[in-house]
């Protein structure tokens, strides 16, 4: 007799493949479960209302929102130019924008300090002529987040834009649409799924930003201490608050990922 539904025989049926695969999964699952297991669930509300938690969460919300605004505003046109331009400098620009992807974030922080610090290449004149100091301010937090998050967005959106049929923008041009109208009304709507995916990656990267932020902006509660810095600072004095904060970040990340997956990603 044959089975009611035919199933293909798996080509992966060997324990020498399964064992490493299971170890890999366990390595990721165990810490996440441990985090949830050690969280003081009954008192979660109390811990979350501690000033460190509220302040740092609020700051993270504000700075990552500002970062995403800038990412969209700067990154979307940049991705489009990289996707379509055949200028000799394009390949160069593409290589440069990917550097922060592989750069250790602390090094990024040091680089930002060298540029925008009080004695930095740009920061020096900025302070001398206008009295503006950038480092160790909330603005510096946003700049650090932008530095690490922008490349994620640009690389993923450029991929989506490159996949867009060139004839689409050519037809738009013959219909009388200039480059800006074509970009806003045709290109962006058509690559919206790519933009959503890139935004999720960039936002997650900005939310988790630690190294560049602590180097360039420091960890001043209420001003530059974002949620990850808050977790790190609270871990010694108030571990329960640190755990509560971690759980909130985990929940938000999973929610965003899940929302995107159902809506835009396959």
């Amino acid at each position, binding site marked *: 007799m044959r089975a009611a539904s035919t199933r293909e025989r798996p080509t992966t049926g060997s324990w020498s493949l399964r064992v490493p695969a299971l170890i890999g999964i366990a390595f990721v699952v165990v810490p996440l479960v441990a985090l949830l297991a050690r969280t003081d669930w009954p008192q979660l509300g109390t811990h979350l209302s501690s000033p460190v938690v509220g302040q740092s969460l609020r700051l993270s919300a504000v700075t990552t929102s500002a970062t995403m605004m800038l990412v969209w505003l700067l990154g979307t046109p940049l991705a489009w130019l990289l996707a379509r331009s055949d200028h000799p400098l394009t390949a160069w620009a593409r290589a440069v924008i990917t550097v922060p992807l592989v750069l250790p974030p602390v090094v990024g922080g040091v680089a930002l300090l060298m540029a925008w610090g009080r004695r930095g290449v740009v920061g020096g004149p900025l302070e001398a002529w206008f009295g503006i100091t950038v480092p160790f301010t909330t603005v510096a937090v946003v700049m650090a987040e932008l530095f690490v998050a922008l490349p994620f967005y640009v690389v993923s959106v450029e991929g989506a834009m490159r996949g867009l*049929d060139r*004839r*689409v923008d*050519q*037809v*738009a*041009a*013959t*219909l*009388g*649409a*200039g480059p800006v*109208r074509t970009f806003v*009304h*045709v290109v962006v*709507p*058509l690559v*919206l799924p790519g933009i959503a995916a890139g935004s999720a990656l960039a936002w997650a990267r900005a939310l988790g930003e630690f190294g560049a932020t602590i180097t360039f902006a420091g960890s001043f509660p209420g001003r530059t201490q974002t949620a990850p810095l808050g977790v790190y600072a609270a871990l010694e004095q108030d571990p329960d608050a640190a755990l509560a904060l971690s759980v909130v970040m985990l929940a938000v990340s999973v929610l965003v990922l899940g929302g995107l997956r159902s809506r835009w990603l396959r």
Partner: protein
Amino acid sequence: MSGLQADLRVRRGEHVVEARLDAPAGVSALLGPNGSGKTTLLLALAGLLHAERARVEVAGRTWAGDGVDLAPARRSVGLVLADPVLFGHLSLLDNVAFGPRSRGMPRRAARDRAREELERVGLGELLRRRPAQVSSGQAQRAALARALATDPDVLLLDEPLSALDPQTRSRTRADLATRLRDYPGVTLLTTHDPLDALTLADRLLFLEDGHLTQTGTPGEVVARPRTPYVASLVGLNLLAGTLVDREGWAVELRPAGGRSAGRLVLAEAPEDAAAGEQVWASVNPAAVALFSRRPQASARNLWLLRVESVTVTGQRARVHLTGDVDLVAEVTLGAVAALDVQRGRELWAAVKATEIHAYPA
């Protein structure tokens, strides 16, 4: 001055297209084999490709030349490609309204215009549909409506029917013909399908290897093809040679591959050619008679040729023959069976002198 005058030199990869066009209002079909540069020429006219040398004047306005090189958005042009390339995120109505909106028309007026254009191509019921929700033929008609909604001076159609399945193609061809009749501007249509050209166009332009080789009305082209490609497209045999007057008029055929190709005996002197001139001789394939044994009747143009291939359309077959001359004969299916026509078989081919039409090359 109306119409389109252009003198272009465009390089695309290793190919160079160099052509001087003069297209009046009405439909001109640009025909040529694949890779001959038809699409390159259209894209350059639209301003989407950079030309090495370009001079384009439309309805008295200079689009390119004299230091001018208008951006595509500033040329009054409509473009329809083989694929509809509709904007997937917009309804058919908004797709068609996109052009008028881009050219500054208020939203409501643009939508009214779009509705009118869509109704003219029979899509009045599908205004709210997304491109993914209509058939390929409907999408292509919407693309035509979109291109015409800006009232362009020049409409460029690049193989507009080639991506459609045969049934949809003939229906869409009819719709296209109807719509183009009401369009007052210059239409340039590329195709490699002679049916498109003969049913849609007032004038034919042949582009081969980047150069225009023949232009004229369909009637002129069918009567006097001037290149083997043109002749094959209109279904005629074309032989090149020198006109001679020795014991009657004949064409001394240009030798192919070192062999003497012999001569074609003509019934009478050609109207506009003199002895010694290079001429083309066209032979209707239906006038080529085939025999398995040497015929007794004295047709003076007789060759023993070898069958190279046979193609069948309906009740007729086209037999491609090669030998001292290359000829195509069109015979009935009955003849194919009776003569046992197959590749490699040797047959006698005869052409009556009265069926040969010679004219200056």
